[in-house]
């Protein structure tokens, strides 16, 4: 049995992941900023078969609290085996272009808070010489695009950070998984028109759980996004800059 920490556990994708782990009878630790919602998730996971579920309330934007809460968590639940970081926001590109405060807030959540938590987790796992850190970035990290480069840039930062951390931790046997979901039908994309490329959180969750089990370095979920992004990356900039992606 593993103890799995989920950071940003109220995310729709994270919740599906937690359900899969619950079905396997794992222990789950949930971090999120809405305790009521965490408790709803906890009830569900318990019925689904989780060995134990613990909830901790935290606004993840407050980076100074990350280390303390990890300490408090470990003191209460014991050692962590797997940590998954899932929180995030999708800023409105237009608003971000016009309003620096809005842009900064999203960069803060999507990049700085990731950098902070990844570091806190790395410092926890490194001396223990085992464990897995999985970080949800995005296919948006693979190329800056006109329609959402503010989000994409933060995700690219988180993605590079995750990859670098993998190098740092490889000597100590800690696995670091960079998870790049494609488009997923969740509250984050509620206002989008859903085309064929949209996957359900359930499908994406099972891809993520599999990637973690197999100690993948980078996982595109669903897998066909690897090919799509390969094509998108290979479009010459002279053409790409004129597209509306």
């Amino acid at each position, binding site marked *: 049995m593993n103890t799995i920490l989920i950071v940003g556990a109220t995310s*729709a994708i994270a919740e599906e992941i937690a359900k899969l782990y619950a079905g396997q009878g794992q222990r789950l630790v949930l971090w999120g900023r809405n305790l*009521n919602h965490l408790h*709803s998730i906890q*009830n*569900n996971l318990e*019925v689904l078969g989780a060995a134990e579920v613990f909830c901790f309330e935290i606004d993840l934007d407050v980076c100074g609290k990350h280390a303390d809460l990890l300490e408090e968590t470990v003191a209460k639940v014991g050692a962590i085996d797997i940590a998954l970081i899932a929180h995030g926001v999708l800023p409105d590109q237009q608003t971000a272009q016009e309003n620096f405060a809005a842009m900064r807030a999203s960069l803060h959540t999507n990049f700085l808070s990731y950098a902070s938590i990844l570091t806190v987790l790395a410092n926890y796992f490194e001396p223990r010489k085992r464990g897995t850190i999985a970080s949800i970035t995005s296919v948006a990290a693979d190329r800056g695009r006109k329609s959402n480069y503010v989000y994409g840039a933060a995700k690219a930062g988180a993605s590079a950070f995750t990859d670098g951390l993998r190098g740092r931790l490889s000597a100590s046997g800690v696995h670091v998984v960079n998870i790049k979901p494609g488009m997923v039908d969740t*509250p984050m994309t509620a206002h989008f028109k*859903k085309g064929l490329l949209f996957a359900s959180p359930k499908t994406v969750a099972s891809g993520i759980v599999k990637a973690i089990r197999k100690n993948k370095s980078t996982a595109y979920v669903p897998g066909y996004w690897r090919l799509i992004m390969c094509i998108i990356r290979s479009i010459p900039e002279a053409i790409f800059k004129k597209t509306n992606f």
Partner: protein
Amino acid sequence: MNRCQSWGRYPKAVQEIRPVRWRDTTVPNSGDKSILPYGLGRSYGDSCLNDGQALLETSGMNRFIAFDETSGILRCEAGMSLDDILKLIVPKGWFLPTTPGTKFITVGGAIANDIHGKNHHISGTFGCHVRAFELLRSDGNRTLCTPESNTDLFKATIGGLGLTGLITWAEFGLKKVGNAWIDLESIKFTGIGEFLELSKESDEGWEYTVSWIDCVAQGKSMGRGIFMRGNHSPASVLSRKVHADPKITALFDCPDMMLNSLSIKVFNTVYYGKQRTKYVRSRVHYDPFFYPLDAVNEWNRVYGKRGFFQYQFVIPFNGGKETMEAILRIIAASKQGSFLSVIKTFGKKVSPGMLSFPKPGITLALDFPNRGESTLKLFDELDTVVAAAGGSVYPAKDARMSADFFQKAYPQWRDFSEFIDPKFSSSFWRRVTTGS
């Protein structure tokens, strides 16, 4: 956005969609638009639609809250699907207290239409098994409704077509089973009379009864069909295997001509002829027994872009045979009949639901491809016969009955109106109360 449709894909409706994911939600403010909860859209007509207005999409509010494995009492959020419930409970030796012909419906939908299943003659409707639910009104009020407390709201909400407020969670009792299998007997019958005898004879010893009936056959073959009766397999059978997810999806809308009267006739004849002897015994998994249509995702697209209708009514036993025969004659003559016509008798168990559809008698459900005017005319003709027999049509399947017919068949509708949340409405309700 046109994401939320009804199963018959008729009528088309456009509405603002507000997902609700958490049971501590408040009813989202929709300005001057009225709102209606929407589960998984397995109602056929317009009872789950709110054209030009707003829908609360509840399928993301789908968490278990508590499950007592000893007493079989389950509490979950209202957007939970029967599909997910079965995956949890079957391996633990429990089954749904009653279930419709698809597992892709929500608990909220099961309550709001007070659905019935193949065990109605023994177990009544879903509402008979509900022990409690929370109802959230647009003014923010939360009411715990049980058979003992807030009884009026409890009764109005069961079968209340989503109009009394948003059910956030519900608690209901399950049925204990030893395994995932059903012992099934299929018996060919030659007419309504024989069907009624078989029903009567099976009412006590058989938990599940349902029949397929050939609604195309005329003359001597009229009313022929196959009576199916089943019981949960004995405890000596151990497997509690859960159903698998559907593997096939109907990817496109079939051309309208695919379902013409010839293909329907061939299907019915072959289906009847497939079973060669009068009696066949078998042991089947619960999935093909209860949910044969669930094997194909989005099978409703087979009926093409224009969509299709289901017509389901109930008529009292008294004079039922003659009325049913008259109806079958009209349908056969219309040459519009359907692939899957299902006939069953309802039992006496009374539901708490104020507007519930089932009453003791015979119920028949048929699919009809949408052929426009001629199909609608046929339904009006059927309504007349059903009304004369003192019967009624099932709102969950209806897209077209007249306000006049609805109000005569459900005279309690006025008392029910008192319990409607002032911000809630539906396409169906506007149609059958104001005729618009």
